[in-house]
Structure formats: C-alpha cells, structure tokens
C-alpha cells in the first residue's frame, strides 16, 4: 500500500518535471500541426501520412531544426468526422498556435477546415489529388489537380492505347462527379460523341457489380476500343475488379485507369484480377531513382517494417514539408504571411526526378506517370509526360471555371474572373 503511494507520488513528480521541461522547451520550438484521421474509415490511408510527417520532423531535427529551433509535432485525431476536422483545426491554430498544418485527405474534410484556416490566417499543406476548382491563400495543394492526373490519363488512353469509347465510372460524391464533369467536357472537346461516353455512379462500398460490368462489356463490344476511367473510391474497387476478372474482361480488351488505387490500397488485397489495369499518379514506389530508393529505405527504417509501401500522397507531403522548410529559412521567420509570400517560386526535387515548383496559384509542377498493376501490387511505369505539368486550379474545360484564374502574387486572388475583371474571394460556389 505504502509502496504504491510512493510510486504514485514519484510518477506525479516525474510528470510535473516533464511538463515543466516541455513548457520550457516549447518556448524555443516551432510547432507543426498534423491533422490526419487516426481512427474511423479514413484511418487506413491517413495514418500513413501522419507517420510520414513525423518522420520528416524527426529527420529535420537531426539536422538541427530550422532557424536554430527544434520542430515539435502536435498530432490531433479528427476521427474521419468532417465537422471534427474544423474543431481540431481551430484547436491547432488558436490553442496550440502551430506555425503550419499538414493534413486532410477527403475533399469534404478540406472544405470543412477551409474557413477555419482563412479566419485564423493559418497555413495548410494538402497532399492528396483532388477535383480542383479551388485556390485559397492559406492552402498549398501539393497533390495533383485534374490536369495533372485525370486529363493526362485520358490522353494516354486516347493516343497510345487508341481508346474511342469511354466509360466514366465513379463513386457518388463530389470528387468523382466534378472530375467526370471535367473529363466529359474534355472528351467532347476532342470530338468524342455522346453515345460513345457512358457515365455511371455507384454508392460508397458498392459490391454488386455484375450488372454494371456486364453493361461495360456490352458497351465495349461495339467494335471500338473501349477504356474505363475509374474514380471508384476505396473498398468498392475490390469487388469491381473481381467481377471484371470473373466476366473475363482483361486489361488488354478494356483497360481500366484508376485515380484512387495506389500501392497502399493494393497492399491489402488479392491483386490477381487487377494485373495489367492502369493507374495514374505523380509518384510510383517502383520508380528507380536514387532519391526514391533513399526515401523508401528511410521510411522502412522509421516505421520498422521492411514490407511497408510508399505512395503518392506521401511524396506530396515530402515535397510540401521540404518547401515549407526552405521558405521558412528564406523568410527567416515562421510568420504565416511572410511564409506564404516566400513559398511561391520555391523549388524542391521530386522523388521521381524533376523539380517541383510552387506556382502562384498555390499548386505544383508535377510529372504524370501511368503505371500498369503488377502481380506484386507495384506498378510498371508505361508512360510519362515529357517534362512537368503545372497544376491548374480552375479547369479550362468547365464552362463556369474557364475564365477564372488564381494568382496569389500579382492578382492576390484565388478566384479572379478574367472577363468581368472581378475577384470573388477565395472560394467558388
């Protein structure tokens, strides 16, 4: 009994000492917020990104931190709950007073935190490919815009594979709907007739694909080469590809190019039915460059698992983090306004070669890679863009956004209409 009390007291004393130590330390650290879901449905994808940021921070601290100060991670868990994202963002910015936040995955979580970052003048790095149609002063989009993923993928199918008939299949929510709207407009601009485009939406986690796959098969047997552009999200992909395999639709007959199937998603499933199907990303783990090999080695050492894979959003965080470090060092302060001004024009090498440059619309230049799925869950790069593609926030193929430009250097506006010469604030719609 007594012993227990003593032990308890000692641990309290230790805790107090530790608190005092962290408080003393906090004065000369730079706080970095990490806003990724660690529980709930998105935890599978987002936990990896949290670990990536932690690894980058640890590495930077080994180099001596930034401006002579150590970095300190503040990790919160928004639990795949969109309103909670806004609350946690508020907490990071107001209570913890972080200098920068790395976070969000789904578009709806980004939309939810956007007003918080704009109100409190925070700084967010968003690492996932998204539907575009947005440019905020406070957000840097390090993932791909539609013209850095969807459009090049369609170009590849059209020019290299010779696809003439198109199936746009997606899960029923904002990213697939907007992307497919852009793609439909793009295909029509390229002279594809309406009867050669089939659009299909399915609910989240759809599993009964027999009818849709049979329809795709019928649509594809009309004598013209057919391709499927898939914005099908998450879980639903597995039964979809399984059904394709069972109905004997091979990648050679009707290739499926997916925008949300990456190494991480493939690592947990039976990849047999997927072999030969395509994915479009800006990074593949299989790309053979010294920088990438080094990154994979570091990641596996950090996570203490020699089988862990890397993926595209991880690279986006690596680029975003390195850019932020460079900008802070250049501005000699972590002050958000000064960092935002310094960010544009900063250059950081990609892991797959080439240089990522931050553009005035807060998007990056990126290489676009098309890969075919291998049996081991990795990709063989079969095509890539010559040089880098600058990210376009506002698609040129949607009637509403054609005339809109984002430029935070000269125009100081994320939504500037070149026809009416008006700036409608940071957001659109």
């Amino acid at each position, binding site marked *: 009994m007594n012993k227990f009390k003593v032990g308890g007291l000692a641990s309290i004393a230790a805790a107090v000492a530790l608190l005092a130590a962290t408080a003393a330390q906090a004065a000369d650290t730079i706080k970095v917020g990490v806003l990724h879901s660690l529980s709930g*449905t998105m*935890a*599978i994808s987002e936990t990896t990104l949290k670990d990536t940021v932690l690894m980058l921070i640890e590495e930077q601290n080994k180099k001596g931190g930034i401006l002579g100060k150590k970095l300190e991670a503040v990790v919160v868990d928004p639990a795949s709950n969109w309103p909670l994202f806004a609350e946690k963002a508020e907490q990071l910015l107001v209570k913890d007073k972080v200098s920068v936040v790395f976070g969000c995955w789904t578009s709806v979580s980004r939309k939810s935190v956007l007003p918080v970052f704009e109100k409190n003048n925070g700084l967010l790095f968003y690492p996932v490919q998204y539907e575009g149609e947005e440019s905020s002063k406070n957000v840097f989009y390090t993932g791909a815009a539609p013209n850095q993923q969807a459009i090049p993928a369609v170009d590849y199918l059209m020019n290299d*594979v010779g696809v003439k008939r198109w199936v746009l299949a997606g899960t*029923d929510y904002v990213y697939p709907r907007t992307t497919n709207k852009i793609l439909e407009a793009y295909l029509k601009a390229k002279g594809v007739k309406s009867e050669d485009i089939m659009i*299909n*939406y*399915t*609910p989240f*986690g*759809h*599993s*009964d694909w*027999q*009818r*849709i796959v*049979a*329809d795709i098969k019928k649509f594809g*047997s*009309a*004598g013209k080469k057919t391709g499927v552009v898939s914005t099908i999200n998450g*879980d639903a992909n*597995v*039964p979809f590809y*399984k*059904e394709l*395999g*069972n*109905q*004997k639709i091979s*990648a*050679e*007959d009707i*290739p499926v190019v997916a925008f949300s199937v990456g190494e991480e998603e493939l690592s*947990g*499933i*039976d990849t047999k039915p997927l072999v*030969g199907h395509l994915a479009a990303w800006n990074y593949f783990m299989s790309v053979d460059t010294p920088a990438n090999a080094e990154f994979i080695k570091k990641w596996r050492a950090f996570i203490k698992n020699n089988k862990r894979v890397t993926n595209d959003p991880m690279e986006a965080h690596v680029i975003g983090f390195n850019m932020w470090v460079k900008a802070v060092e250049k501005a000699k302060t972590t002050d958000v306004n000064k960092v935002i001004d310094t960010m544009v024009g900063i250059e950081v090498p990609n892991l797959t070669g080439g240089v990522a440059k931050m553009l005035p619309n807060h998007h990056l230049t990126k290489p676009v890679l098309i890969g*075919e799925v291998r049996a081991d869950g990795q990709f*063989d790069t*079969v*095509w890539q863009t010559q040089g880098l593609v600058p990210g376009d926030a506002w698609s040129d193929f949607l009637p509403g956004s054609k005339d809109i430009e984002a430029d935070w250097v000269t125009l100081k506006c994320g939504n500037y209409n070149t026809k009416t010469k008006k700036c409608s604030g940071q957001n659109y719609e």
Partner: protein
Amino acid sequence: MQAVPGTRPGPRFVPPSGLGWLVLVLMMGMLWRPAAAAETPSFEQALSGLATSNFKEKERAVGDVIAVRHANTRVVLNALLEGNLYYRKSDRRVFIGTAQDANLQLQDPVTLSPAGTTEPSEYSKITTNNQLRKTLKSALASFDLADADPQVRLAAVSEMLRSLDADGVSILRAREGTEPDEAVREAIRTGLAIADLDGEDAAIRLAAVEHLKGSLNPEVFNRLTAIVTPTDAGSYAEPDEKVRSAARVALASIERWRSLFGTLETLFFGMSLGSVLVLSAIGLAITFGVMGVINMAHGELMMLGAYTTYVVQLLMPQHIGASVLVAIPVAFVVAGGVGVAIERGIVRFLYGRPLETLLATFGVSLVLQQLVRDIFTANNRPVETPQWMAGSLQVNEALSITYNRLYVVLFMVIVFVILQLVLKRTSLGLKVRAVAQNRAMAKSMGVRTEWVDALTFGLGSGIAGVAGVALSQLTNVGPNLGQSYIIDSFMVVVFGGVGNLWGTLIGGMSLGVVNQVLEPYAGAVLAKILVLIALILFIQRRPRGLFPQKGRAAEG
C-alpha cells in the same frame, strides 16, 4: 549478308508502327523472297532490339522476333509474356532469367544453354504493357494452332480472332483445311467469314453473311450492323443490295436471340442478388421471424463467418480450393456459438421487451466490430477466391454466367433445403415450431423452452455465419461488412412475411430480380431507392408481408 535495320533496299515503304509493320514485313517476305533474307534482321539483332524501355521500340522488336520465326521465337515470346526476359545493363544483352531466391538464373536465348546465376541488380527486366501482351498472346496462339489438344487449338483460334490481321487470316486459311476438330474448324470459319466481309467479290461477301447468320459473336453483330446502317450521306458502305438484305435478315434473327439471352442474363443477375439477400436474411428469418427477437448483431455474425473463412485460409494456405468448403461448417460453429452466448448472456433476460433487445443487440454488434478491429486491424482482409469459383461459364457468345454467382445460387438452395428439413423433419424443428406457436402450451407439454430458445438462436446465428462465408467471396471482408447487409436482411424478412421461410425465399428473390431489372434504366442508386419506396407502399397495404402467418399464432 546482314541487313542493318533502317537501311532497307528495294521499294521504299514508310512503315507504320506495331502490328501493321509486322504484317508489312511478312508480306514483303512472301512477295520478294530473295530480298527478304536481307529484309528481316537476324534473331540476335531482333533480340537486342528488346533491350529498351520505350514501348514503341519494344513493339517493333517483338515484331522482328516474330518475323524471323527462329526455332526459339516461341520460347523468347513466352518468357517475355511471363516477365522472365532480362537484359544486362552494361552491354544490353538479352537473357531469359528465372528468379531463384535472391538470385537470377540466366539462360541464353539463342542456344538455350545455362548462362550462370547472378545478382539481379545488374540486370533490367524487360517489361510489357497491355498492347504488347496482346500482340504476344496472339503470336503465341498461332504456334498453338498445331497443338495436339483441340481445346488448346480452340483457345488459340479465339485468341487470334481478338485481333485478326492479314497475316492471321492467311495462317487460319492454311489451317482450315487440315483442322480435324469440328468445333475448331467452325471457329476458324467464323473468323474467316468476318474477314471475308471485306472481300472484293460480292458473291464472297454474300456467302460470308450467309455463313454468319446464326453467330452470336459481338463482332459479327457490329459488322452486320455497319453493313445495313446508312452513312450520313444516305449511301451504304456495302454497295451490293443483295448482301445488304441478306445482312438485314441475319441481323433480325441475331437480335432476337440477343434480346432473349439479355433477358436471361438479367434474370440470372436478379437471382444471384436475390440469393445473397435470402442467404443473409434466412438466419434472421429464424431469430426474428420464429423467435421474435430483433437481433441487430445479425450482420456482425455474418462478418464473423467471413473472417472465419479468412482464418481458415491462413491455416491451410496450400489448399485454397478446399478452404471455402472447410470454412462452411467452421463458420457455422463459430457464429452459432457466439449466437448461443448472446442468447444465454443477454437476450434471454429481455424476452418480450423488443426495444431493450434491439438496443442490447446493437451494443453487441458494436462490441463485435471493435473486437474484430482489434484482432485483425481496421483494414480489409484479403480472402482468396478458389480457382473453381473464378471465371465464368460461357453458355454461348451472348451469355456467360460467372461461377461465383452460380455457386452462391446453388449454395442458397442447399442451405434453404437443409433448413426446411431441420425445421420440418427433426425433433428440434418440431420443438422450435411448437415454442414459436405457443410457448406456454409447449412448456406444459414438457418442452424445455429455454434450451430450445438457445438452440434456435444458435441455428439462426450459425446460418448467418454460413452466409458470411458466401459473402467473403463476393465483397470486402472488413469490420463494416455486417452493417451493409443488416438493413437488406430486415427488409427481406418483413417483405416476405414474418415467421415464414418460404416468404423469405420468394421475398428475397423478387427484390433481387426487381432491383436488377430496374438498374439498367435507373442506375444503381436510384434502383435501390425505387425498390425501397415500392416496399414501403407494399407494407402499407399488407403490413404482414407477402405470406402472413395465419391463425392464432399470428396474434401472439
């Protein structure tokens, strides 16, 4: 005399890329024999062309390898298709390599003699893409045409028909005369007839149309449609009216068959969806229908069955084919055991208090989900499909039935029959029905109702586990599997009529078929909504479902 690629004597062609180039080379080879020797590069040269990462160049090199028709062409093409072809980074020499542990065992492609074992890092694998694989498969198929097995020959012909070019046509024409097997000859004739539709002579085209009259090949349908469809200017691609009218007649009969098979296909899709619904609902029909317990954890019991399949597969990785069959009784025992535990631990204290039962079992469902998350992580688990369940049964060219769905339909029928036998023919079934009809009376007749309750609940839960095994082959095995089926299950039971297994069967099947009939017109999302609305309206008219229980039992 060795030709350097690019400096070709004789007539100047601007070679198109890919297959067209290959055809040109072959045609030139046939036409100008003496020049052809200089035309085609040697086997070694063709091989060295493969050592590149550019797919256009690779395709050209593959064309060369096919064109030289070297004794080892087939071996090399096969190695390339299997991903066993490598080149040495230092001098770009091509080898056939097989991965052996961490090393690469090399084989010289020209002499086929072993060339030692080395570190893979100095070698680069020659990758293929979809177009290249298609070319390779088609070329390999032409080798298979002479195979002893008619099945292999048939597969080779259909492989070649996928992308038939002038070269393929001449190979097939040569084969037609010597082919002994009737089915293979017929397949070759269909392919040649399709090629003949482009013939110069109207009589040949007419004969081709006549030949293709009964074919359900989609390619035939497309070609015939093209013949009878006028262009924008009002003229026809096919100049001869006789050919056109023959095509119209042929097309009319093909269309009749196609729509018939299309209807059959929809019916099958509906039945397979219906079977999934029935399988997931039939356990509930027992616990909810017979016992009157609203078991919200029913979906999680299915999830347990699916996870059981996964664990069984982990335990017997060498026998994936049998693992699913083994998993069925195991899943029944696991889910049934959990069901008995739920009944003994929770539900028996709450009989006659439906709201509390609902909340308590909902709590159980959350506990089970979290348990699975803690044991197996939140990620989906990969359950492998056994070979015998993959692929599809090709009834004819317009109708194919996927094996996994077919087995699920059969499986549902078997489960249903067994369940009916248990309830109607065994003493347990008699007691279950007695307790369901009148508990007090049964008790006074000496039936141990408590014991019967536990076993009935266990039976319903075990069936849910068995349904989970079937679901593991159709959908993702993850902690949320149960949630996506629980609503559908209740829907089917209520629609079919509480306490009636036949009602569940008919109800599930008709919901499945209606859903699949609506889906092509309304889309997956709207079809589901429409079915739900129809169901609500139906329940308004007939609150007791399709087959209501009659008599005094219904009042209880």
